[in-house]
């Protein structure tokens, strides 16, 4: 694999956002993933969402672990700092970066191997701490980069390409996140951009840990008949339970945007996430009910997607730690170092 810089060609006809940037400005290097890989579609949705939100790319930190999925931050937002860390440990990088500079918009991209096996502990603790970030788990049921071994998200009975059945229960990231107290939990499908883009936008606006599990088929190792993470299987079993939309701060919520029995939750920046239950009686603000419903439907082999849970009163890590507003990185040294006179006074304590 080599690094290929994309030629920067601007068409005057390309639509610009409020910052005067086109979608191109939110792209990165050319992907080196397999043609048709679900991860690339997620990258496209990420590009779209950031562009639509008018986020200046350089204010973003894009982080990842190791895996095909974790390579993708190279493929979007070339003007953002990227950190491709070590396998399963991106949450620690995010936690540290979030402490250092809470004004960064952080997006983390991970895989099911990265998040649910080697990095399971770190994911759990990032959720617990409610690190302010969007965490995208690109879920294909296998380790793509090491050539197709089952991951912990593989469903029991799902067949490997070589014809072996997985015998163990899956770790379901969405149920896990709900159990751990995640304040924003969604599931989507790489093939459903219409659903994914607003979810990403809502996740970015959420103050706290926004978790999106995206079923993202691996065309090379897990897209065959008998796999429960293939395009065909997902298309057939996907059931959208909640339709979410993201309404930026400057727009009024109008009746048109919230048809039916819609609910909305205001984000910390004044924007709104509105959502409408497709499934009858599904309440995306009720953690226990959401958990039970998802579990019930899973027994029927349904892959529930949409904004599955959102908490209106999320206190993120910076808030819990009572950090002063703004970054800790450029505080004047005088406000950090107590100085010689204070040290001299302090010495009395040690006599």
């Amino acid at each position, binding site marked *: *694999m*080599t*690094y290929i810089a994309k030629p920067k060609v601007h068409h005057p006809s390309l639509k610009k956002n409020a910052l005067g940037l086109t979608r191109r400005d939110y792209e990165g290097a050319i992907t080196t993933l397999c043609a048709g890989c679900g991860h690339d579609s997620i990258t496209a949705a990420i590009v779209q969402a950031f562009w639509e939100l008018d986020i200046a*790319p*350089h*204010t*973003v*930190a894009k*982080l990842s672990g190791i895996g095909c999925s974790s390579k993708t*931050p*190279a493929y979007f937002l*070339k*003007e*953002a*700092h*990227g*950190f*491709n*860390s*070590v396998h399963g*440990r991106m*949450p*620690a*990088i*995010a*936690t*540290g*970066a979030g*402490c*250092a*500079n809470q004004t*960064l918009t952080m997006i983390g991209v991970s895989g099911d191997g990265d998040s649910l096996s080697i990095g399971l*502990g*770190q994911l*759990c*603790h990032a959720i617990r701490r409610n690190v302010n970030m969007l965490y995208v788990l690109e879920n294909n049921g296998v380790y793509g980069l090491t050539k197709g071994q089952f991951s912990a998200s593989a469903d029991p009975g799902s067949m490997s390409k070589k014809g072996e059945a997985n015998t163990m229960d899956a770790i379901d990231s969405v149920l896990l996140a709900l159990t751990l107290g995640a304040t924003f939990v969604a599931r989507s499908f790489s093939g459903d951009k219409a659903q994914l883009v607003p979810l990403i936008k809502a996740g970015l606006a959420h103050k706290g840990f926004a978790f999106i599990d995206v079923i993202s088929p691996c065309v090379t190792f897990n897209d065959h008949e008998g796999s429960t993470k293939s395009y065909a299987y997902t298309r057939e079993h996907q059931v959208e339970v909640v339709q979410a939309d993201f309404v930026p701060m400057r727009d009024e919520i109008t009746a048109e945007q919230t048809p039916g029995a819609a609910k909305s939750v205001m984000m910390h920046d004044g924007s709104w996430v509105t959502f409408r239950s497709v499934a009858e009686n599904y309440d995306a603000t009720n953690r226990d009910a959401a958990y039970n419903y998802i579990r019930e439907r899973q027994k029927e082999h349904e892959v529930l997607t949409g904004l599955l849970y959102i908490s209106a009163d999320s206190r993120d890590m910076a808030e819990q*730690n*009572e*950090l*002063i*507003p703004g*970054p*800790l*990185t*450029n*505080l004047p*040294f005088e*406000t*950090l*170092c*107590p*100085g*010689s006179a*204070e*040290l*001299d006074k*302090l*010495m009395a304590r*040690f*006599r």
Partner: protein
Amino acid sequence: MDRVNDFAFKIATANGTGSASANGLIMQAIFRMGIPVTGKNVFPSNIQGLPTWYEIRVNKHGYTARTPHFDLMVALNAATYAKDVAEVRAGGWLLFDSSWPLDEKLKRPDVTYLGVPLAELCNGAFKGVRERILMKNIAYAGALAALLGIDTEVIRQLTQEKFAKKPALLASNDTAIALGYNYAKDHFQCPLPIHLERMDETKDKILIDGNTAAGLGCVYGGATVGAWYPITPSTSMMEGFKGFCQKYRVDKETKKHRYAIIQAEDELAAVGMVIGASWAGARAFTPTSGPGISLMNEFIGLAYYSEVPAVIFDVQRTGPSTGMPTRTQQGDLMLCAYASHGDTRHICIYPADPKEAFEFAAKSFDIAERFQTPVFVLTDLDIGMNDWMVPKLTWDDSYRPDRGKVLSAEELEAAKSFYRYLDIDGDGVPQRSLPGVHPKGAYFTRGSGHNKFGAYTEDSDEYQEVLDRVNRKIQNAARALPAPVIRKTPGAKMGLVTVGGCHAACMEALDLLAKDGIHLDYMRVRGFPFSDEVRQFLAEHDTNFVVEQNRDAQLRSLLMLDTGTPLTKLESVRYYAGFPMSAHHVISGVKAKLEKAA
């Protein structure tokens, strides 16, 4: 023979009984009398009920190393009587609780027994069970005050300071001290031939442990993010940092914090948080001990190769594995120097005492940011957890942090281009940018192969070019690290080389060896990679005794590997059984080598 201000005693109790505060009181009182003193806490890896000892050495010459020769034993733990009795030097004293008779088998003819019925005295004076146990320990402090001639006025002052806000406790403490004191006065010839007389040798000094000092150093150095996972003997460092942050870093009006402390889920995460925070531009650190370093290895390699600053404190304890968590050692010298897979070499700095722990802690952030790499600050349990008498800490207000080659938004705006790993200045240190500052500063940080422009590569030449530059960078750092402490002795032909906390034992040993006609030049290394001065010192001496606290002569190996000095010039002197090194370990080690050579 009167041994005024030159003796050692040891107090044997069970942990969790409040003896720590009595021991601290005794030590502090001696210090306030102007007499040089050090204390070593020998404690179990346990919370309550197991044997614990506190060793206090008083030395008018200012020798502060541990001595294993005890003139007086305060034996208050029946479980360890036999061992404690055996440890008293011939002609010494043993104080015990005579509320119960002492087994005849424990009597030694060459030791004077001082029975004080501590339990009986306290049972008479105090009511609750817990209070009786606690006060029994304070009562022996009173008895020692009489026997050793500790100024009662100083003790009173100390208890008043300590219990200023708790008058009930103050009264109990005073009562307990008086009980012990009066009993000793009434029953023994006070003071003993080993006793104290006021001096004036401590007025510019303090008693402080290295973890507290290092935590304070992090505050002074401007660290804003600390991540950790508790592990003995490093835990009190983060507690220290937190305490000082609460004092100095909480906004007066808003009560908001100018610091973040994250208790991580493990050391792996802790160092990842440090790397993430440093990458984003904060000064960040993690305190740990050997097992934590073992876990951090993968991340350390990432920070080394992707050139992210990180400060890691290793308060060493005995290994391998869990080892003896409450005993000291210098067993991680090699581990830290070459942590992680692949070709790595890390900057290490080695404080010898709490004062240097403070100074090096503050300095470590400059080094890490200047060279964009992990920096290890290696202390040990003895430095970290014991109270050392050191000169007062001082601070130069003209100090400004060296953030290294971090480009500002203006610099990035003005720059024609920015490439993260380009060696523009020829010193091996590239320019750095922080996230969120400027679009031109964007680059991709990765632990996978990258070329000097920061792009992914699998090209051999491109890969090697960066790897070699990083090596040059680390080598260049050698002269920016704390210089070795060198003491030359006229006529000396051989050298004694050591590191870290062995310093005190070596200084004492050098004086004693000189009395026997053995004169040695001295060098204490304080930074790795080693500078030319270190190389030169070794070259100047045909024999260099390398003194350290680990089994495998790790310092000796490092010296050989990093300076090319042949092993034949490096004679190893080691002690690694878990206690702080004593002068006699150095002396007997050196003499044994000399005899063998003769």
